[in-house]
């Protein structure tokens, strides 16, 4: 399908909005009526047609506006994009992976023409037509990772693999759920996860690291993660907490449906072939509570998940203070009927809300 790109903002007047198409394909992260940490990873090899799983790098109606927002974040704070000197090859790997994937998956939007190491890249939505020499940084306006991630939705961490660990040695991080690349750069897997409650005691990180270290070339994986964001902000960074943290106090029973957003990360993992590094794209999707409630299954389930979530997790995810108001709002969309398993909304078969 041809995508109609929205003209919208993720700041100031928050004109961000989801079309009906975008709501229906929103990656709702709860496959059952409760939530606890789990690695829950599966192979990333396509998925239902039209879903965010279908292509290797999902492109949707927010693409152009998200890239404009990223450019603004970088103009204000260049340290959101960093690559330690040994990660340049991994950056080329990522550039190749994204260019090849997008040109194959969206031939009407992206073209890649390769003649040996002479490459021509055409990005129609952003009006880019560049020719460069693969593996020669001097032929691109930015380093390879920065060049391609200024044209790709979602954050990107490039993890070096050595000493049986992963190291946060490069990244483009402008749409993050309250973590800082500038703080984490150079850290290993256990160090950058140190703030997460409970999971370490549960042995989750040891198992997750083992899984990630063994992601083989040609077998990418994926999982979903989630948090809550008041207003459709892409940039909820620690650097800008003074700007967005306060907005959590503006929630009222009248505006919560429009202002409160479920924030979902589609995390994917790719072994990069030349550098043997791991690419970790973290794609952020936002959906307001009122848009989620248009799917009866999601209304029932979100209420139960938010209501029953352990206090540590609600605190860590930053909505413990607003949880009572959220439960009040969501309870109106939970009639107690059972929900079908799995994340998809099933609007055709799920019964409408009993009133």
């Amino acid at each position, binding site marked *: 399908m041809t995508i109609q790109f929205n003209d919208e903002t993720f700041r100031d007047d928050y004109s961000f909005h989801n079309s009906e198409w975008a709501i229906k394909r929103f990656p709702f992260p709860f*496959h059952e009526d409760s939530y606890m940490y789990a690695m*829950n990873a*599966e*192979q990333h*090899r396509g998925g239902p047609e039209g879903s965010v799983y279908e292509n290797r790098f999902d492109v949707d109606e927010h693409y152009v506006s998200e890239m404009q927002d990223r450019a603004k974040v970088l103009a204000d704070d260049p340290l959101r994009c960093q690559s330690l*000197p*040994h*990660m340049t*090859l*991994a950056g080329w*790997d990522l550039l*190749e992976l994204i260019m090849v994937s997008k040109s194959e998956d969206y031939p009407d939007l992206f073209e890649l023409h390769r003649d040996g190491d002479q490459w021509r890249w055409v990005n129609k939505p952003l009006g880019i037509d560049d020719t460069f020499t693969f*593996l020669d940084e001097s032929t691109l306006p930015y380093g390879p990772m920065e060049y391609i991630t200024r044209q790709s939705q979602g954050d990107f961490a490039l993890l*070096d*693999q*050595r*000493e049986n660990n992963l190291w946060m040695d490069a990244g483009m991080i402008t749409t993050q759920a309250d973590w800082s690349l500038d703080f984490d750069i150079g850290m290993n897997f256990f160090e950058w996860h140190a703030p997460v409650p409970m999971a370490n005691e549960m042995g989750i990180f040891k198992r997750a690291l*083992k899984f990630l*270290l*063994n992601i*083989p*070339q*040609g*077998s990418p994986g994926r*999982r*979903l993660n989630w948090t809550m964001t008041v207003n459709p902000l892409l940039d909820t960074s620690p650097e800008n907490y003074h700007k967005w943290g306060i907005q959590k106090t503006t929630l009222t029973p009248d505006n919560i449906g429009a202002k409160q957003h479920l924030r979902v990360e589609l995390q994917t993992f790719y072994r990069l*072939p*030349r*550098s*043997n590094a791991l690419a970790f794209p973290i794609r952020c999707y936002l959906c307001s509570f009122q848009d989620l409630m248009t799917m009866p299954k999601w209304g029932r389930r979100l209420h139960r998940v938010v209501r029953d979530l352990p206090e540590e997790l609600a605190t860590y995810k930053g909505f413990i203070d607003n949880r009572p108001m959220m439960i009040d709002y969501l309870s109106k969309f939970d009639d107690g009927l059972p929900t079908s*398993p*799995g*994340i*998809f909304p099933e609007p055709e078969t799920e019964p409408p809300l009993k009133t």
Partner: protein
Amino acid sequence: MSAPQKAKAGAEKIAVTVSAVVPVTEYVTRFEFTRTDGADFPPFSGGAHTVVSMEDGDRTRLNPYSLMSDPTDLSHYAISVRREDNGRGGSAFMHSQVAPGDAMTITCPVNLFGLDWRAKKHIFFAGGIGITPFLAMIGQLEQTNGNWELHYAARTAENAAYADMLLEKFPTKVHVYYSGQGVRIPLESLLTGQPLGTHAYVCGPAGLIELLRDTAKGLGWPDSNVHSEEFLAPAPGAPFEVRLCKSDKSVTVGEHESLLEAMEREGVDAPFLCRGGSCGQCETNVVSADGDFIHRDHWLDDDDRASGKKIMPCVSRFIGTTLELDR
């Protein structure tokens, strides 16, 4: 997530055609592959291996070999196989049964022995057939003008696979030592006085790896700057019985097969990547055991071994009365 797709064990497979079989020395033969679909191979990094499937009668042999072709040339992949006359038969199969034009299956590359890209200098130590991963590493470093040198030990000049080619192309970077002439790699003097930020890599017999590690440690090298790869072949041993609880099967592991191979023979899709005791992918929980484990892997730590709750079925065995695994 709905309907999770469970990965099949092992890395992604690639159908290949044997394009050349080239004798290199009395014992070593190079096998070159092209993709059956005519496409280029995926890019790979120096130090990566591929697992080759060999259809040997009613038995499928799966052996890992380092990719030794030039990573900048993706029109073909190549491995070099040393014939092990007292081995388990995989190398003998490759040498005696595989001919140009044959269809085979290999896996996507997996790298457990990658270059450390932070290194200011890479110094390689190869023993015998351990030369193979370094050939690909050298190819990759040459592309980016990397700083490297190679020290290669072989028994005789006739046995030193690729030594002539390497000496001719890189006369100032390659040094070959023949043990048949009583010449050993002078590890101590080579490891002394290297510039800060040098990384050492060793591949070859266990004795060489151990000696290099000990020498480096004695000279104050940090462990993180010394990299080694030793593919363990599963060792033969007395047959033993194993109960696979999840699969609800009882299996006898034969003298010349590994526990992993016995599970695969019975149709159990057990995870694996390297099949050489290094990657950790096949780690299996022990439900109960009455007997002794013969741990041969490089993965489990001392606590894991002491617990009696873990086994790496690709290389490790068991002697005793009962063994029940969570597989």
